[in-house]
């Protein structure tokens, strides 16, 4: 996408706010016309004073004076009072218009950004899981926060700054040339130099700004790593090593930043020099012409005042234009996300609940082309049955679960739920029928209760309690300082891995889905609690089809059917008793884990034997 297209894109997103933006710019133009009238008033007043009784004002000045002072006389005093009142009134009117500008541009820019934020938020949630796999969280977050901020500042400040500089020039130039052509040319003498110098300078230091940002980010990351790992730091008594590491980053940020500020110092010194020399030039040349009599003192005053008003925004332009360039880039990065296609959403939605029959038929799947994760998988589960999936890491266990959730689209083979092809069902419908619990579940930073209610928003208190009891987490929650109202996450209670898993399980149970998937979901739960949970799951067994993915034999052995995966293919399939008899992976696992269990059995028998006697 080239810059022009990016700018066009930003333009598209301003629809609905263009009117109010125009009002802001028109108000600003009117405001500056009034603002520029003020030095003219002072000019007439000074000339009137200077020339004393010989001063012959234009007829409109006289008319205005009569109007303002309300007296029929038009002496010097009347001129002065009229000038003073006009100065205040004109400034106040200009102020009023500038206020309108500020208000309108705020509403417009904040409104546009609000819409953009909501759009990207909603878009992110509807992008397919495969997109989130590919993209880096930090990078996405940066697009949503700092890139968005860059665009916001552009809309709120830089557009206004640019229009301000342009409007100022447009309105002031006619006045200057009307006052005195020689002085007008002279007051523009250094402006091109100033403008070009500013733009060139800020283009040059653009990279330095980036370097400073990067070194700050490195410093922050080091700090954060130290603080999150403080227990490890202490455990190895590495305080001085850490301090050294941080010092280096801290000093690096200081030095880069100082270098940048130093360069800015040089730039501002030079540009101040140019600006003030420009005013000095006007003063001396003007003074010479006043001496000749070809310029009045009032004119000189007006020129110096105008120059002071317009030269500083020009000096500022370099910075503004560079930042605007950044805004275009930022907009491009936001547009990139918005341009990604979202998940398909127009499949059918049968509306009645599923019974829970699942059939995989020769399903193959790959996340990246050429690296198949599932090969020709076929199996089926009857409603209410329990299927256990076992296999070494990377054998494709979780992929089966993800496909069932329609988080990914399969292209080879067929998956049918209740005899309907999965890919013809709407994602929302499928997901409302399946609940999944992951090994490292995600909990929202909200209260425990709110996290549970994610399962079903209108669940009654009794249903919540039933779910937490079934997941064996109720007692732990009762132990939290604010029980069910405790906040989860950094600002509240810190949950152990097992507690997180059980909370996620309770959340899933609350959903009462026809299909429940536990993806290694009890790995951090101790065996005591695990057997408790499995028992309560068994009680609810008739209600749902269950898929359990696990490492421990104890978890999987009671399933109706066990599927052993290896390198993406079904290596073994059957009940525990059959598989334990057959040569293969399952029996090997039984032997490893069985050795431990045999030991336990032997111990127990031994001691029970002793007790008998």
């Amino acid at each position, binding site marked *: 996408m080239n810059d022009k297209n990016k700018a066009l894109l930003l333009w598209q997103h301003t629809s609905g706010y263009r009117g109010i933006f125009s009002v802001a710019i028109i108000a600003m133009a009117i405001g500056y016309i009034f603002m520029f009238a*003020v030095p003219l008033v002072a000019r007439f007043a000074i000339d009137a*004073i*200077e020339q004393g009784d010989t001063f012959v004002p234009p007829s409109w000045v006289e008319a205005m004076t009569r109007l303002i002072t309300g007296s029929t006389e038009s002496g010097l005093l009347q001129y*002065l*009072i009229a*000038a*003073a009142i006009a*100065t205040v009134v*004109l*400034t*106040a009117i200009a*102020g009023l218009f500038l206020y309108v500008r*500020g*208000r309108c541009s705020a509403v417009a820019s*904040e409104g546009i950004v609000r819409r953009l934020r909501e759009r990207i*938020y909603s878009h*992110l*949630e509807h992008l397919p899981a495969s997109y989130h796999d590919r993209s880096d*969280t*930090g990078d*996405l*977050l940066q697009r949503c926060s700092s890139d968005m901020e860059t665009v916001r500042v552009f809309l709120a400040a830089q557009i206004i700054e640019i229009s301000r500089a342009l409007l100022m020039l447009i309105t002031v130039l006619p006045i200057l040339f009307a006052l005195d052509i020689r002085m007008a040319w002279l007051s523009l003498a250094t402006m091109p130099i100033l403008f070009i110098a500013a733009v060139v300078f800020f283009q040059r230091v653009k990279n330095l700004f980036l370097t400073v940002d990067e070194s700050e980010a490195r410093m*922050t*990351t080091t*700090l954060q*790593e130290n603080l*999150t*790992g403080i*227990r*490890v730091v202490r*455990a*190895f008594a590495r305080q001085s090593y850490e301090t050294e590491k941080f010092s280096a980053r*801290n000093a690096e940020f*200081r030095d880069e930043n*100082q270098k940048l*500020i*130093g360069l800015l*110092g040089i730039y501002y*010194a*030079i540009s101040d*020099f140019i600006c003030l020399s420009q005013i000095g030039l006007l*003063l*001396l040349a003007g*003074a010479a012409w006043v*001496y000749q009599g070809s310029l009045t003192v009032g004119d000189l005053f007006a020129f110096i005042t105008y120059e*002071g008003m317009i030269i500083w925004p020009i000096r500022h332009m370099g910075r503004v234009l560079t930042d605007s360039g950044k805004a275009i880039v930022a907009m491009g990065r936001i547009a990139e996300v918005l341009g990604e296609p979202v998940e398909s959403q127009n499949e059918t939605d049968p509306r009645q609940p599923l019974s829970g029959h699942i059939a995989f038929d020769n399903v193959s799947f790959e996340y990246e082309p050429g690296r198949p994760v599932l090969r020709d998988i076929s199996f089926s589960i009857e409603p209410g049955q329990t299927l256990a999936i076992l296999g*070494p890491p990377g054998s494709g266990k979780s992929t089966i679960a993800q496909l069932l959730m329609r988080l990914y689209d399969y292209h080879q083979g067929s998956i049918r739920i209740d005899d309907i092809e999965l890919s013809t069902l709407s994602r929302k419908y499928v997901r409302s029928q399946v609940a999944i619990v992951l*090994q490292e579940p995600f909990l929202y930073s909200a209260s425990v209760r709110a996290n549970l209610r*994610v399962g079903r928003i209108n669940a009654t208190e009794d249903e919540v309690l039933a779910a937490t009891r079934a997941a064996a987490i109720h007692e732990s929650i009762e132990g939290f300082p604010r029980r069910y109202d405790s906040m989860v996450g950094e600002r509240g209670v810190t949950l*152990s891995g097992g507690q997180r898993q059980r909370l996620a399980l309770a959340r899933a149970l609350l959903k009462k889905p026809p299909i429940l998937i536990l993806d290694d979901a009890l790995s951090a739960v101790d*065996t005591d609690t695990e*057997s408790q949970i499995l*028992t309560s799951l*068994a*009680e609810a067994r008739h209600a749902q089809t269950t898929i359990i993915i696990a490492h421990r*034999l104890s978890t999987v052995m*009671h399933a109706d059917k066990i599927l052993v995966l290896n390198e993406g293919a079904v290596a073994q399939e059957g009940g525990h008793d059959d598989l334990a008899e057959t040569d293969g992976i399952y029996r090997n696992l039984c032997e490893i884990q069985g050795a*431990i269990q045999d030991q*336990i059995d032997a111990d*127990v028998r031994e001691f029970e034997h002793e007790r008998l006697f």
Partner: protein
Amino acid sequence: MSDFFDDENYNDGFEEDSYEHGMNLDLWRRLLGYTLSYRVEASILGVCAVTTAISEIAFPLITRAVIDQVAESGAALNYWYYGSLYMGFVALLAVSVGGFIWFGGKLRTHVSHDIRADGFANLQRLSFSFYDFRPVGWLMARMTSDVERLSNILAWGLLDLIWGCTMMLGIAVAMLFMDVSLGLIVLSVIPVLAWISLKFQRMILRSAREVRKTNSRITGSFNESIMGVRTTKAFVKEAENLKGFGTLTDTMFSASVLNKIQAALYLPLVLTLGAVASGLALVFGGLEVIWGTITAGTLVAFLAYARHFFEPIQELANWFAEMQMAQASAERIISLIESEPEIQDSADVRSRIAAPAGTAGLALDGYHDRIEQIRLEGVSFAYEPEHPVLKNVDLTINQGENIAIVGSTGGGKSTLVNLICRFYEPTAGSIRIDGVDYRERSLKWLQSNLGIVLQSSHIFGGTIRENIRYGRLDASDQDVTDAARRACAHDFIVAMEKGYDTEVGEGGSKLSAGQKQLISFARAVLADPKILIMDEATSSVDTVTEKQIQRGMRELLRGRISLVIAHRLSTIRDADRILVIEHGSIIEAGNHDELMQVQGRYHRLYTQQSLSQFTKESRSWQSAS
């Protein structure tokens, strides 16, 4: 990312509002110490501020002289004289501006560096109890945005204070010098201007803070939506999340529009007040010119000054408001830098460490550098007095003993270990190492003899090699590989694309939970500690891997004290002694056989895990359906 931590959402009891009235000068004096350690730079900065103000005041005076000469005296203008005078001040101003930005920048960056360095150093000393109540995000906010805000005040605020005061004083003197009565008339606007500025600046700052706060919540919300996208999809929460996000963006919209409206009101008000001053100067000055008491040039100078003096007032009002608002930050930073760790070496230990090294083979605190016995006598511990976690625990651990600790969650297992590591100290009773109370020994000595593998193992960003080497910084590559072999991490490491030089990502994000644990295990192996601590260290590895680790473990535990907290009892069968801890007390102790004999809690836990137990359950499973 820094705006992510610019976060005032962490409620920590320091209420911003309570600081808004009145200034805690003592606080600022302490912080000013950071500025004053750069005396030379601060002095140059002050001089530059003054010369900047002086040159700015000089220009209207030169203009006045020029106009008077051409308009009044009728004499030809001495271009060289005025030209070089004017350019001299231009040069002075340019040099001063360059100088104050340069030195101000130096001061600002150095001050923030120094505050951060002190803060960091103290954070490394503070006890774990300090961290228990302060989330990482809170600490990050203090160390990043608070420090930046304060160093801005301490450098640029100081500059503007000197510049603004000189400027206002200079303008006032110049006006009164030119004409006392006209000067007083024009200056009469100043009190109103100052009052309005202060009011508005405070208002604007407060709403700006609201904007920042909302902004960081929006960033947090984006973060959550990205991290939890699968869960959101799984529970079909998209619409609801968007609704929640919508209220946030609404808040953001009204907060930032309010902030801009305040600014849009302030500027016209100030401009109009400036116009009043100009108007007054015009009427009274004009009359005086006609009467001949002042010249036209003086009038022009007055008009120029009337336009100029609102600038320093605006700046000063802004800094004053900023300082009032930043007092809470100042307080928090000071407390971060000055809080004393609850656990630290006693004065006696420090003096012994400072004493010249004695005989070889002694630890840095003068005692023997070995641990033959750890003895807990009547040890109790409570985070809050009404909820004791450990009650009157007696325990003796001898050199080479492998201790396993089992019991329910929350029973006090981790606390016992934390006390032995002296991450916390007992609230009653004592812990003795070879007969000496460990409070009489060096903290650093004890903790550098520890090796710890935690339940959720923290991995630092960087390569796998760097992470393992954290255990012993001077270890050779060969040592690292050996340690990884013993921890059974070697195989998966070499299978990775770049082997030991693989970048693990921030917080080890590119590794699985099991891999992280194996690496932290290798790290502890490399440290070759006198005391090895493992806290449920094998919970996330699959059975096959766990088996491998255990083989290495047996070798590793030999000859040193070890404390292993584990849920899977099969993993600790070989321990020399097993402690069963429930409700803060050791209820059973002994080796596996002894405890099985007792038929108590351990026996129950152990049999629960047995295969036969599951057979019984499977019957209940089937009968349930």
